[in-house]
């Protein structure tokens, strides 16, 4: 194999890594081995082999094609017959959106300058804090949100599963342990051992609106998503404004500030307009398999939709039909003069099983009680 080919392959690996794909050294080694295994006679074969080794999910296919075409650009004369179909559709980055978001993590100190310093919330926080609107929250006050989110998540998560575990008293006899036991007992299975269902982990799918109208709340709501993900294993998170974006991986950072930073780098139409209906419809068609009768879907949005209300209504109906519960948390519901009169909200409401405010700690506690019922 030529040195040039090895060099290009390594460049490909490096660039894919730079664009956010998980490409480890062992991937690179496998890539070289793969080329050796398929031979390098045709460009298509090289393409298929490298794709097989380096891509790990369908969302990466397009990116791979783009980077591959750049690194393995064919000589000019046969460029036309290249078998690789390439689409260049990476959205233009908006640097301003990135900057404003990434500063959120550390924002607390500077942005609160004019205000009175709020005490760090303790287990029993002051009434003032409980009723304080999230739009006025500083970064230091997010800890309490995190605690409540964790409790809510655990509550949503506990249900009996199909998995068994050993138990002193249970619904079924555990043959294996009974058998073991009986051997010390002249093989008489006198002492029955039991097993019972382990609590099942419900899956939560959270879809968070990060459009311009939600600006004041997005920071808190993302914190909520972050905390949800940290508490129960089965949470899938999405953000949307004009388009939908899967962010579970980005929110997995151990530090919230890092998670925000990587979000800022990846989400491009941050603080733009809102097309809730289309975003939910594209969730249904692209990610619909994530939702089943054990899934709780949580939508966090103010319902200001610039798209067709009918599209939103239909997407909501599909979601309701497929999920166990469809919850809509609306921060605006907290203000006394708000009524859900927007066309989008009107179309969505008939399908929602819980419609609740989420603008301060008190409303979150109420939500917790609600979910328990």
């Amino acid at each position, binding site marked *: 194999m030529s040195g040039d080919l090895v060099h290009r392959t390594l460049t490909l690996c490096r660039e894919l890594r730079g664009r956010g794909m998980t490409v480890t050294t062992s991937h690179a080694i496998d890539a070289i081995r793969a080329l050796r295994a*398929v031979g390098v006679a045709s460009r298509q074969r090289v393409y298929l082999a490298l794709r097989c080794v380096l891509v790990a999910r369908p969302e990466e*296919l397009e990116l791979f094609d783009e980077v591959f075409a750049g690194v393995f650009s064919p000589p000019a004369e046969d460029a036309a017959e290249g078998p690789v179909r390439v689409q260049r559709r990476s959205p233009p980055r908006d640097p301003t959106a990135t900057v404003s978001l990434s500063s959120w993590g550390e924002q607390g100190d500077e942005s609160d300058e004019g205000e009175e310093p709020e005490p760090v919330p303790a287990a029993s926080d002051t009434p003032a804090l409980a009723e304080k609107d999230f739009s006025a929250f500083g970064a230091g006050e997010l800890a309490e949100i995190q605690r409540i989110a964790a409790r809510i998540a655990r509550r949503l998560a506990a249900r009996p599963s199909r*998995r068994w575990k050993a138990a002193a008293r249970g619904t079924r006899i555990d043959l*294996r342990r009974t058998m073991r036991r009986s051997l010390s007992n002249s093989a008489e299975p006198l002492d029955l051992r039991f097993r019972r269902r382990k609590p099942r982990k419900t899956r939560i799918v959270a879809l968070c609106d990060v459009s311009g109208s939600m600006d004041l709340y997005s920071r808190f709501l993302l914190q909520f998503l972050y905390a949800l993900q940290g508490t129960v294993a089965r949470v899938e998170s999405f953000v949307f404004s004009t388009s939908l974006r899967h962010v579970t991986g980005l929110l997995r950072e151990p530090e919230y500030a890092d998670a925000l930073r990587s979000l800022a780098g990846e989400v491009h139409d941050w603080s733009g307009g809102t097309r809730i209906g289309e975003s939910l419809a594209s969730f249904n068609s692209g990610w619909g398999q994530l939702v089943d009768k054990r899934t709780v879907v949580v939508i966090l949005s103010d319902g200001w939709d610039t798209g067709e209300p009918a599209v939103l209504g239909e997407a909501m109906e599909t979601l309701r039909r497929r999920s166990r519960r469809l919850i809509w948390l609306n921060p605006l519901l907290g203000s006394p003069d708000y009524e859900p009169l927007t066309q989008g909200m009107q179309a969505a409401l008939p399908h929602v099983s819980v419609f609740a405010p989420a603008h301060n700690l008190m409303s979150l506690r109420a939500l917790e009680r609600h979910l328990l019922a």
Partner: protein
Amino acid sequence: MTSDEEATLDRIAQLLEQLDREAYVADPAIATSLHLALELHKPLLIEGHAGVGKTEIAKVLARMLGTDLIRLQCYEGLDASTALYEWNYARQLLHIRLQERDGHAAADAEAKIFSEPFLLKRPLLQAIAHEGRPPVLLVDEIDRSDEEFEAFLLEVLSDFQVTVPELGTIRARERPHVILTSNRSRELSDALRRRCLYLWIDHPPFEKELSIVRRKVPGASEALAAQIVGLVQHLRMAKLAKIPGVSETLDWAAALVVLHAEHLTREIVGETLGCVLKDEADLRKVRAEMESGRLPVGAP
């Protein structure tokens, strides 16, 4: 070209031909992925919509290698004892009774009843303890199992050895060829993805699907098959809750052949649409489109 490269081309061509012969229409991406899985000794993760023929690929591979296919069908609640091994309790109890009748103490039986004849091998252990040529291990619909099982499977896949406390460690003589399939009903862990080669199978384009229908449902005329495939391809672009796969196309074609349909009419489509669309809301939506004439059906 070196002789190695020729051998490689041979194998990929052979795989292509085999895929073709099994009436599963061949695709260079599939053949290349299988070839790499064999050469690099890595598991191959195949993802795609339901009904694109993922499971079929493992069967073809086993037939081509002339080896056994061992299938582990995943479901929620699948645990190590169902996937790996279980003791045969009924036989153990029976054995103890017989021992007692012959005047042996029950405690003496212990070593005996926890030995290999009393072990029920489940698919994973079958694949590891397999004699002869390494088998193809198909872990079907891994996304239906839970995360705990996925972690357990990852462990098994990394060293192909299993420790049965009463028996000791059982090691695979040669690594089985492993194929995993997923419908993406949940996201698989990065760790699992990292360990596998990856193949995404999309719905086939028109010509490819047409040739699948022609081959699997020979009773359908060329014209009818083309109309069916055309309509299904059209439906896939609509925003439906359950997008029809190739198997739905085939079911539909077979149903239409039974009804002696020569070509699609609005009535026939209306009566048989249930073969293609399995979701009530989808059916309603598409019927409405047909009524309004926005969905072109069949010959004018």
